[in-house]
Structure formats: structure tokens, C-alpha cells
């Protein structure tokens, strides 16, 4: 291999520089486009992760506040909106089967009674961490009636593999009929 540059290319340094500058512009441009897409979808679809930094004492969850057992499950609020309150603990969710109306905007409020858990509903974009001391709040909508699995997706101890729950989205009218008689709904009722 010869160490001398090819004849006629002796001033190659500026060629090298020009080509790599062009590539750097393309690379940065690519990133700017991606970030612009993120900004657009974030604002246009108001797609935001759970980010309220809201705290709660996990040692008194069961005796006071919105996460007492009788208040867990799906609730039709006074303004007509629907809120689902769930507690995660080693190694189950309460309620273990969540009943929601399809085609309705939902707000989930979830917290943990012990360690870090994960909250994921298959075939949807619902995906949140659940941490003791904090409340995860996220909004979503189920397009159509269907059944979904709901595994805990963060290692929470040696029984983690058995921590699965279910979500059942039912027809909105059917849900309203049930909600007329029950204050808090889950698959059991």
C-alpha cells in the first residue's frame, strides 16, 4: 500500500471536509425531523406519558384516601367521565379483572402498596410504571369491546412471573346499565 496520495488528489483535504460536512448536515437534519415529529404528535394528539409527580403514602393506602378497597375499580364520575383506580402489590392487581366501557375516554389512577410494578395492557399503548409513594395517572380509550391481558412488566420479586391480570372492554350501553346500580365496577360485578 502506497503512502502517497493519488496524483491529482493532493488537495484532497478540503474534499474530505466538504463531503463529511454535508453528511453531518444530513445527520443533524434527520434528527431535527424526528424531534419535530415527536413535538407534533405530542401537541396534536396530546400524547404524553404519566408525569404528574403526585405522591401518596403506601402504608395508609388501605385505610384512607381514594385507594381504599371499596373505591377500587371503575367509577362513573359526576361529570360523566370514567376513572379506573387500581392498586398493585406482590403479586396481584386489585381489581384482578378490570371492566371498562369501550369508546369512552378513561383516566387510570394506579399506585403500588409495596415495590415497583409495571402496568401494561396488551394490544394497546397503555404502559406505565407503578411505584410505591407515587400515583401514576394516564388517559386512554379502548376502541372496541375486547379482552386484554394485563401483565406486571417490572420485576417485583420472585413471584413476578405469576402477576397477570385482565382487562375487559365492554359495550358502552351495557357498561352504563351496570354503572346505574353499582358505584364501583370490576369483572366480578
Amino acid at each position, binding site marked *: *500500500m502506497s503512502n502517497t*496520495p493519488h496524483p491529482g488528489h493532493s488537495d*484532497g*483535504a478540503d474534499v*474530505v*471536509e466538504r*463531503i*463529511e460536512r454535508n*453528511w*453531518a448536515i444530513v*445527520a*443533524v437534519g*434527520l*434528527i431535527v425531523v*424526528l*424531534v419535530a415529529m*415527536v413535538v407534533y*404528535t*405530542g401537541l396534536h*394528539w396530546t*400524547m404524553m*406519558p*404519566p*408525569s*404528574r*409527580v*403526585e*405522591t401518596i403514602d*403506601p*402504608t395508609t393506602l388501605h385505610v384512607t384516601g381514594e385507594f381504599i378497597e371499596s373505591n377500587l375499580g371503575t367509577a362513573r364520575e359526576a361529570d360523566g367521565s370514567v376513572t379506573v383506580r387500581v392498586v398493585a402489590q406482590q403479586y396481584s392487581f386489585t381489581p384482578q379483572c378490570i371492566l371498562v366501557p369501550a369508546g369512552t375516554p378513561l383516566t387510570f389512577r394506579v399506585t403500588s402498596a*409495596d*415495590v*415497583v410494578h*409495571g402496568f*401494561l*395492557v*396488551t*394490544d394497546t399503548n*397503555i*404502559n*406505565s*410504571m*407503578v*411505584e*410505591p*409513594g407515587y*400515583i401514576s395517572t394516564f388517559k386512554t380509550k379502548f376502541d372496541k369491546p375486547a*379482552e386484554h*391481558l394485563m*401483565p*406486571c*412488566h*417490572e*420485576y417485583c*420479586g*420472585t*413471584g*413476578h*412471573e405469576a402477576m*397477570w391480570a385482565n382487562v375487559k372492554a365492554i359495550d358502552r350501553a351495557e357498561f352504563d346499565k351496570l354503572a346505574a346500580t353499582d358505584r364501583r365496577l370490576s369483572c366480578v360485578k
Partner: protein
Amino acid sequence: MLNNRRLVLAHFWFAFATFGVALLLGAWQMYVRSPLHAWLRQPELYYRSVTAHGSVMGYVFPTLVAMGFGYAITELSLGQTLRGKRWAWAGWWLVVVGSLMAMVTVALGSASVLYTFYPPMIGSPFYYLGVVLVVVGSWIWVALMSINLHVWKRANPGKPVPLPMFANVAGSYLWGWTAVGAALEILFQILPVAFGLKSTIDSGLARVFFSWTLHAIVYFWLMPAYIAYYTLVPRAVGGRLYSDGMARISFILFLVVAMPIGIHHLFADPQVGSGFKFLQSVFTALVSVPTLLTVFTICASVEIAGRLRGGRGAFGWLRVLPWHEPMMLAVAFSFVMLGFGGAGGLINMSYQLDSTIHNTQWITGHFHLIFGGAIVIMYFAIAYELWPQLTGRALSSVTLMKWQLWLWFIGMIVTTFPWHYAGILGMPRRMAYFDFSNPALAPEAITVTMSTVGALILVASAVLFFMVLVRGHRGAAVTPAQFEFATAVHPPKTLPVALNSFGLWLALMIGLTVVNYGYPIAQLLVLKETAVPAVWMGGQR
């Protein structure tokens, strides 16, 4: 010339030995959770295995490779004997003792907390102390790299620092600073609880500290691979480094922007506000710039080799490349895996798309493809390059080396592609078994079987790797040729201070960390009621 061969060999051999054990554990994990095996009667064993696999592959193996390679680079590129040899050995011993202490604790079942710790789960203090020893040992290396660079600079005022050493020191500074996050978490949050001095811990704050380490640690793993791309590959394939300046800019960018982006691991967490999540999403996008620059520069450098070998036309140079060279195969495989893994990474960093795959098997697939694939295959190539220098014997098993690299590439693709797919279906991570009899999970069964086959191919590749290395110790004794790093097409005669030193960039790195992490950490520190009861792992105490 290498003077401290035993030091470098000790680093490499302990690194690869732990890697071999952890790889077997990984393959066992894939097998027991696949439909080929019945449900594990004692799932707790699975989590011991995951903890050991993650701790070794995350903290011990890449750290030792970076350290050993760093000591070799110091002597080979600066042409001076390593200063602080005794300290270097002390660092090695700390890593070895720390690894053994942590692994014995995990094997006994006293710390099945996984390598991510995630309080309020708390394991035996000996596990965390072991990790601390590993990190302290590596910090000695960070200090030695800095000292050796300054010794050289004093003897060679105004001269450009050789690129391998410049990149090596950038990597060491990156590690020194990024390890601080997990160190704060362990020293101030976890250990007081593990020793029984406290009974509560802020799990949200712990996750923020850990994210400080968790992302940039990947770039620390990556550094030896990138150093090999820039300073070994062009020479090994008979080309020239296209641009020395762009190489320095890439390493500087890694140093500055790889660190303050870890909150993208916390997009789905409730304890960080949306502003900082968005900010770090943008910074995460920025960190792909140095990789895009690298891909360009290395492809151009390899193209030079193709042209020098008589290749013509837009693609003709590809055909004439020295495909019989292990380094050529390694870099080609590495780039293919980096391409797929990097594309997946752009999805992970996206504020919205992340919610589809966060914490699913997709993530496992992503970092195995990047680290286990693109990076580790370059570790193999580095070992093959250095072995004759270290042993004074020729490495003659070229066919075995090529088989080994092919198998590693195929095995990694077969393991990680089904993982990505299963993740999109919503398959969660870190499960000791799955109920494949559930109709909703049945379609995922085949993906786990495929990954198991991939894992077995990887084990076969590792066997060949060890055969090559051991044979290397027994080969014909030779006087190894003078080791040379790649030369640039236009080697720098002088460099601006900014491209030849780190002061400005370290200040930027720390400044950006304060900007991007200061508020989220301060907010959680002053927030009341965030300390929650610790949950002990590993039975009664």
C-alpha cells in the same frame, strides 16, 4: 511495544471467563422459559440467574475489557511504559474481589434484586458492596488513564494526542462521571437500608439516580468497539482512516451528550415531570449524531481499502474487500447489528412510540443486539488483534475465528429478532415462565423457542472463541510485528486545543448533567412522604 502483558492478559482473561459463565446462564434462562421446558418449580432460581447474568454482563465484563484495552492503548499508542502499574493491579484485584463477592451472594439467593437494584427491594449488603468494589477498581483505571495522558503531554508539548489514546481517555471520563449516579444511589440510599440503619427508601429518587448511570453505561461499553472501528479496522482491512478530526468530534460528542439523557428510561415513570422527559428525549436524539458520523467515516475508510485493492464503481469496492480477514467480517456484522439496533433505539427514545414497547421483550432484544451483538463482536475482534502482542505467539486459527464470528452474528440475530416481535405483542420482560396454554399467549411460544435456538448458537460461538484464545497461548512463538494503529488520510500535524484536550468538554458534560438532572433530583429530595418501607429479598433476617 507492550510491557505490561500480564496486566492486560489478566484483565482480558477474567473478563472473558465471567462472560462465559454469564452466557451459559443466559442460555439456560432462555431454555427454561421456553415451551421446551416445563414451568420452573422454583422460579426464584431464575431470578438469581438473571441477577448474575446482568451484573456480570453489565458491570464486570465490559469494564474489564475497557480497562485492559485501555492499558494496552496507553503503551501501544503513546509509546511509553504505563505509569502506576501497582495501582493498575490493585484496580484489577478490586474488580475481581468485588465480582466474586457479589456473585457468591447472588448464588446463595440473598440478593435476587436484578442488576438494576430497583428499591424498595433490598438484598444482602454484600451484593451492593461487591458492585461498589468493581466500580472503585474501575475508577483507579480512570485516574491512571488521565495521569498517563498528562505524562505524555508534558513530554510532547503541543503535539496531537494519538487518536486511540484520545478516545480511550474520553471513554474513561465518561465512565468516571456516569458511574456517579448509581454510586450515589448505592452509598446514600441502598446501603444504609441494607445494613439495617434505615427502614425506608425513596424508590422514585433511586430510579432517577440509576437512570443517570443506566444509559451512558451503554456508551462506556461501546467505547472499545468504537475505538476499534476508528483505529484498528482501517489498518486491518488495508485502508486509511478517512478523517481524524471527525473521529475526535464523535468521541467528544459521546462524552458530552451520552450522559444527561438517561431519563428516557423513565418516560413511563410517575416521579419525573413531562418537561424533563421531553428535554431528555431531544438529547437522546442528539446522541445518534456521533454514531451517524462514525458510520459514515468508517464506511468511507473501508471504501478507501476497496479502491486501493482495485474496486471500481459505486459498489464494486465492496466485492474486493478482504472478506477473509476476521476484522473485516467483525466490522461488517457489527454494523449490520448496529443498524437494526440503532433503528430500534430511535423508537425507544421517542416520547410516544416508547409506550408501545416500554419494558417489553423488545427492550431486551434492543440492548442485546446493540451490546451483545454490535459491541461484543468487536471485543472478540480486539482480542484477536491483541492476542499475538500479549502472548508472543501467532494466532493461526483463522478459519475458527471466521466460524466464531459468523456464529455469533447468526446467533444474535436469531435470538434478538423474535424478542423484538414478542415485545410488540406485549410480552413482558423478566418472567421465569409463561403460561403458553393461555390462548392469548400461545402465539408468543414460538418466539421463545427461536430465541433459545439463538442462545445455543451463541454458546457454540463462545466455545470456538475460547478455543482460539487457548490455542493462541500454545502457538508457535514469534516476535510480533510492531503494533500499528490506523493512519489517517491526512494525519493531523497540529490540532486546536479543543480537539486535543478535555477541559472544556468535561465542564460541558457536568454542566449539562446539572441542567438535565438538577431539578428532577432536587424536586424529589424536597418532596415529602416519598420514602416507603423497604422490602427485603431473600427471606427472613
